[in-house]
């Protein structure tokens, strides 16, 4: 049980990769990439977790000695989410262009460098 959360992260990533490789629709592939990326959130948060730890917001009741969960990985997760959103929006815009120019969004219908 002590590494259960890490395997959840690994499973999410593998599912995402599987989805991208078997995708028949570019939008679906982009969403699968987001799924694969979200595994990193699970992994990071799992690494920083501590039983009995509270949120790393100090103030009333929480001081320097109180066990808190790791804020470093939380900050990294925030960065991760922002980059993921940027990548997703960019890819969706590319899909729209692809649909306009080639009238196809099935990667199998596109050339090797296009899909």
């Amino acid at each position: 049980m002590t590494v259960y959360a890490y395997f959840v992260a690994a499973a999410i990533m593998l599912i995402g990769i599987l989805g991208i490789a078997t995708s028949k629709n570019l939008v679906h592939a982009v969403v699968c990439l987001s799924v694969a990326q979200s595994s990193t959130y699970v992994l990071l948060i799992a690494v920083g977790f501590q039983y009995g730890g509270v949120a790393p917001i100090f103030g009333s009741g929480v001081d320097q000695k109180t066990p808190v969960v790791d804020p470093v990985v939380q900050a990294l997760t925030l960065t991760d989410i922002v980059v993921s959103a940027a990548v997703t929006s960019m890819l969706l815009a590319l899909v729209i262009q692809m649909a306009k120019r080639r009238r196809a969004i099935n990667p199998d219908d596109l050339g090797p460098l296009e899909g």
Partner: protein
Amino acid sequence: MTRRLRLILLGVGLAVLGTLLVVALPQLPRFGGDAHPYRDLAVVATFQHATANAVSSINFDQRGFDTFGEETILFCAVVGVAALLRPVHRERRREVASGGRVLESTSLLVYVLFPVTLVLGADVVAHGAITPGGGFQGGVVLSTGIHLLYVGGRYRLLQRLRPLAWFEQGEALGVVLFGALGLAAAAFGAALFANVVPQGTLSDFVSAGTVPLFNMAVGLTVGSSIVVLLASFLDQTLAIRADQGGAGPSDGVREGAA
């Protein structure tokens, strides 16, 4: 490459990767344990700069330069989307009528939630240093609040309330402010992106030195970025049409923009 060959290759790759993960993951530190060396260092640094929200302290104080890079990534992505989603060859923009039937309950909800969401977004940005939240989260709330008007069926009102040029400027201004704050620290003789302002006491509204300022710069950038981003996609779905003679946009376009 045929589909079959690709699937076989994928299967082999996933099997190898899966095996490696199964071997490697149990050797990670135990889940939920109390050994977090980075946490311990970060908490000490957070208290030195009187920042209540440790995540904000890390993002905007201890790793300020990294966050500048992150913000630049977002900025570039939005510029890229805006460039990709212009009306291209044989396309034109049409006027979008405010139309369609919207349930009265939806409209009511939008009118109630619109101001509430904007205030909430501003609150999340302003209190980023002392409560959960910050520039990134607050910026997203703000831009979502503006787009509630679209949910309420008031696309024309949304267009009037959202002068895009301003948001494009706002996005750039946020990035410039963020960089300027970092350079200002260097100008005061400290390191780039150092926290040079007096930090005050923990949990006060004005505390944590430069963290709230960075939060506001990021809130400006993120809020404007999302507005520009959604505007590009909405424009693509609602306003941009292929010219007469050319075939209409395929279903994929609408799917992609939805």
